[in-house]
């Protein structure tokens, strides 16, 4: 019995599931840091997509890999800024519960 090979669809489904988990986290987590982590999950899903497409669609060029590296780099920068804001806001309000940030509304 031949081992079932892993195809493009498997990667895409993995990516989609990961994206869904991230999405769920973004919508339900109350802690700002947890939401930040969930966003990272969504970006990981993107990276999986990119790499899989690179492997199966354009194996001779490295477009997808390059793209993924850029995504990782930029995401790091974004998280850096995000954490800085969270620290600042914690100093200010002693709280990083997202439900309490509704001063700006209507």
């Amino acid at each position, binding site marked *: 019995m031949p081992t079932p090979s892993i195809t493009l669809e498997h990667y895409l489904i993995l990516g989609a599931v990961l994206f869904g988990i991230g999405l769920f986290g973004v919508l339900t987590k109350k802690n*700002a840091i947890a939401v*930040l982590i969930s966003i990272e999950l969504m970006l990981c899903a993107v990276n999986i997509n990119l790499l899989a497409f690179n492997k199966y669609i354009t194996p001779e060029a490295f477009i997808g890999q390059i793209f993924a590296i850029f995504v990782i780099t930029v995401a790091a920068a*974004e998280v850096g*800024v995000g954490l800085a804001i969270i620290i600042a806001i914690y100093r200010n309000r002693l709280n990083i519960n997202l439900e309490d940030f509704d001063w700006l509304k209507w």
Partner: protein
Amino acid sequence: MQMDFSVIIPEIAMVSLGVLVLILGLILPKKSLPRLGWFTSFSLIGILALVVLNWNNVGTVSGGLYLIDQFSQFFKVIFLTAAILVVFGSMAYVDKHLGGQAEYYSILVFSTLGMMVMASANDFITMYLGLELMTISFIVLVCFRRNDSESLEAGMKYVLLAGISSAVLLYGLSLIYGIAGTVLVVEVGMILAVQQSLPLLLVGVVMLVAGLGFKIAAVPFHMWAPDVYQGAPTPITSFLAVGSKMASFAILIRIFVLGMFGVSLSWGILMAILAGVTIIIGNLVAIPQTNIKRLMAYSGIAQAGYILVGMVTASQAGVKAIMFYGFIYIFAVVGVFTAISYYYNLTGSDEIKDYAGLSQRSPLMAATMVVSMLTMAGIPPFAGFVGKFYLFMTVVENYLWLAIIGLIMSMVSVYYYLMVVLVMYRDRPQDSSPIVVSLPVRMTLIFTMLVSVVLGVYPGPLSEIINKAALSFFMH
């Protein structure tokens, strides 16, 4: 491969300027820091002159990844002009409320650079880099008042929601890359034109629309805009309203008009619906607002809807209309926000009711706000009328309902702009001492007002230039 770096001199200059301002901030004595504003603005004027002088110096860099044509040159002019006006308008505000001049101006320069990259980017990776450079810079700028809860809350909302939107955008881009096998927009366009419509493509396009819709604050992706606009330092709000919006439109045009023309039928109607909904919601919710920045945020949402109208037909006329309206839009928005931030400096209030009697205290500020608002409402003879005329003419033939919604909602917008005007001109001020407007602010106000009037009365030459720029866009 020999690369012609001369075409990207403005970008190189921007990087140098950003770094230089940061370094100057470290070496200069603290009391001369406010002069950095003048330094930055004059350097930006120099770079603007560079772009204008190199108007016809077009070409590509990095094997077509980075494209300089008249279309991108025009957008760069828009961004640099906006940045210059914002720097002029924000000097007083920064010195009084923010401090950290070096960081502020340097990050502002970098975000402008991000926009310029977006205008020239010809592939998904470069676009993404430009977009994130702009967005991250903006995040920092939004919460620049780091001891102010509202500013921080706005920053927090912006960083998380922008993160989500870029994740969605990236997911869409990755799918389209998977279908087309390339990230070059022009190639994507050619491949998709012969491609069967796949469900994956649908998902990809939807995510692109959502991700870019977030940046231009189109309904239903607009929720962040009012909160962030209200919480951010006022000069940044105006830069966010024009720069971020127009840069995202540059990408939107590039991706959809060039990359998606093969599937144009299915997204034309979508753009029309989004534009219609955005115009309606933006204008309606603007009416009950009591905070002027929030009012302007909703009005900005409505304006995004108007500009989106130009996308519907994916035609040269549409692209031209967007560029024209975008150009007018900077001056209108910057004019209003400069007045708002200066007024906040004096009174510490953004509430509309506190604008009572502004016309007696400072006729110039009141007049600028009136002219800019009438421009945005599209009342002739101000420039906005011509702009809206261009936009709606493109859809009158096939989407008459959209033009009618636009016209009706313009009348609604007259209503809430008029409310502000009434307060400024009719009510008695509590404190009727005249306001002395500082030189850079006065320059900005007069300049924006003049442009709004002159372009309304005589839009011919600008319209010619844009015709050529829009044509260059379709030459690839």
